């Protein structure tokens, strides 16, 4: 069986869900004729027509708000952020309306919408195109946040996000679109709120998401040779965290390191470690470690960029230290 590229896995998921439910529609910049800036909606416009795959003007705040209104009145829109960073312009609609409106309305309305697109630090894209908005949006009540990392979970999570009756912020990563692997056939769905245990181990719990999963995998390979048995967990759900899976792992390893691509201050790991401290304090044999990007705008220069985000060798060093009780 041919392998599937991650962007095609997403495309398949959207295609299947659009075929299954005519209320599912796509809106965003260049999603139609152009097929999406990362080809996630390639040819869907031809197949489903220009209303169901709607090319919008460059007006993030308004087309995101339009998706809110469409969702309130019965459609199931998928909004593409051409780059997730552009959704800073839609912060108001995502926060006030997608996130808060169901509550503020006392349950009058539900907003079954997906906001998806590429995030993360790419290769020398400059500060503005290298943002990790999952951290900025983390405090917004009423939205679910997921981050995909493989073609398989991309497909299963996209289908789940479209079927969910709540607003879902769906983070893809610019550097992962061309990953490929065999993906399950048929109506494959992943749970939106479940972490994925990528590798079982007994020495150290390593929590990560999105592209950093692949940096961690590199580190784990080396750590295996150094005799450190890592339990690698891909968080998948950034909100809410799957604390059950996380706590179970920490009860086994008693040590935890978070590896993330967002900045340290106000990051995903900040909240995660606070929760771990609250829930798993007595199970910990060492203080939790946090490997995050520097608190700076991502620089353009390649070396500086590499220094900004965590590299596999730093993950190796941290895990070795944790196991040896040096940190």
């Amino acid at each position: 069986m041919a392998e599937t590229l991650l962007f095609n896995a997403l495309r398949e998921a959207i295609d299947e869900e659009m075929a299954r439910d005519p209320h599912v529609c796509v809106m965003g910049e260049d999603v139609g004729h152009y097929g999406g800036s990362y080809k996630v909606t390639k040819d869907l416009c031809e197949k489903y027509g220009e209303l169901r795959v709607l090319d919008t003007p460059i007006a993030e705040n308004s087309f995101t708000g339009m998706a809110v209104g469409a969702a309130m009145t019965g459609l199931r829109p998928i909004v593409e952020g051409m780059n997730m960073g552009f959704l800073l312009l839609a912060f108001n609609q995502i926060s006030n309306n997608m996130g808060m409106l169901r509550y503020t309305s006392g349950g009058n309305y539900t907003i079954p919408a997906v906001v998806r697109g590429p995030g993360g630090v790419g290769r020398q894209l400059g500060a503005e195109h290298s943002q990790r908005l999952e951290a900025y949006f983390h405090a917004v009540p009423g939205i679910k946040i997921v981050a995909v990392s493989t073609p398989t979970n991309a497909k299963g999570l996209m289908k789940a996000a479209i079927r969910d009756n709540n607003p879902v912020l769906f983070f893809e990563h610019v550097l992962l679109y061309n990953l490929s692997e065999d993906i399950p056939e048929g109506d494959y769905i992943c749970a939106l709120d479940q972490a994925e245990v990528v590798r079982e181990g007994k020495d150290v719990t390593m929590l990560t998401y999105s592209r950093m999963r692949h940096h961690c995998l590199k580190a784990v390979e080396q750590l295996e040779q150094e005799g450190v048995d890592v339990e690698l967990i891909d968080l998948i759900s950034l909100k809410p965290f799957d604390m059950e899976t996380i706590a179970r792992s920490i009860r086994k390893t008693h040590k935890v390191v978070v590896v993330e691509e967002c900045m340290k201050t106000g990051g995903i790991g900040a909240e995660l470690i606070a929760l771990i401290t609250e829930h798993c304090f007595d199970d910990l044999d060492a203080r939790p470690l946090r490997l995050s990007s520097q608190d700076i705008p991502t620089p353009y220069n390649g070396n500086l960029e590499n220094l900004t985000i965590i590299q596999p060798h730093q993950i190796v060093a941290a895990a070795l230290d944790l196991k040896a009780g040096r940190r």
Partner: protein
Amino acid sequence: MTQELTAARAAQTSIPGPAASSEEAGSHAVRLEGLVPAERASVSRDEGLMLYRDMTLGRRFEDKCAEMYYRGKMFGFVHLYNGQEAVSTGVIRAMRLQHDWFCSTYRDHVHALSCGVPAREVMSELFGKATGCSKGRGGSMHLFSREHHLLGGYAFIGEGIPVALGAAFTSRYKRDALGQADSDAVTAAFFGDGTCNIGQFYECLNMASLWKLPILFVVENNRWAIGMDHNRATSEPEIWRKAAGFGMVGEEVDGMDVLAVRAAAQRAIERARAGDGPTLLECLTYRFRGHSLADPDELREAAEKEFWAKRDPIKQLALRLTDMGLATAEELKAIEKEIDAEVADCVEFALAAPEPDGSELTRYIWAED
């Protein structure tokens, strides 16, 4: 503005008393006086009384809100609608309730009432009670009712406009993508003059016209955005003219004359239902009270307030109904009495209503709960 037009207009307005000269009353008044006399909607007796009832309810409900606010029964920012009733009633009551969609701002009590949300539910919401239309979670600026197709009260300037656009998009989508030939719901989005300077307004005019969406952008131009004079905030004060830049029909109308608003709304609704796209309808109006109940309202000139008070839309309608022989003064009095009873009842109901259950604090965050 020609002398003849002014004279024609003065002759039409049968409200007695010396009219403040519009020069003194400011630019907004000058503009109103200069409007070409509008064609008014013709109404049956029943329709006329329905409009009168709706406007009177709006007015008396708001007066009661002020009283309750000062008695400490409601809190937060409360924006009253007094003076602007002809817009809510003129537009919403020309539309199909529970079929068309309505989107408001923080100044939303009266829009909600015109949509048919029971006064009991609105007053309860203002008291923060469990029986409120938003279950006590929303408050004055966040009234919602799915049952009555009220998309909501939105507290941030401009943010309701894209939401309304989405509802209009759904109408078109149902018709053209889902093949529901009878999908003809029209959406009305209400907002103020100050809101016409924010990006979302322009972005949505563009998309609405581009896709010929069935929507009315209803500007309630009351000259003021809190303390900011409209003329100091915008490069083209005649908002309806901005429609032309988007290839859209724009219209200005006397927003103190409910029959004129109704006629303009009917034209716009007809266009929208026929698939001919959106309309930008600028209603020249005025708020009789401060921006909110926390506003001492010291900035606006007395002459301006006087000018507009003389054009009280409810008094104008009363005169028109009696002049046309559609109702007697006694009948209108009887309606006012009924409304007073309804307002008293809604207060009583809201006072006695239960507080939201504290154990349900986190309910309504997720669709499943």
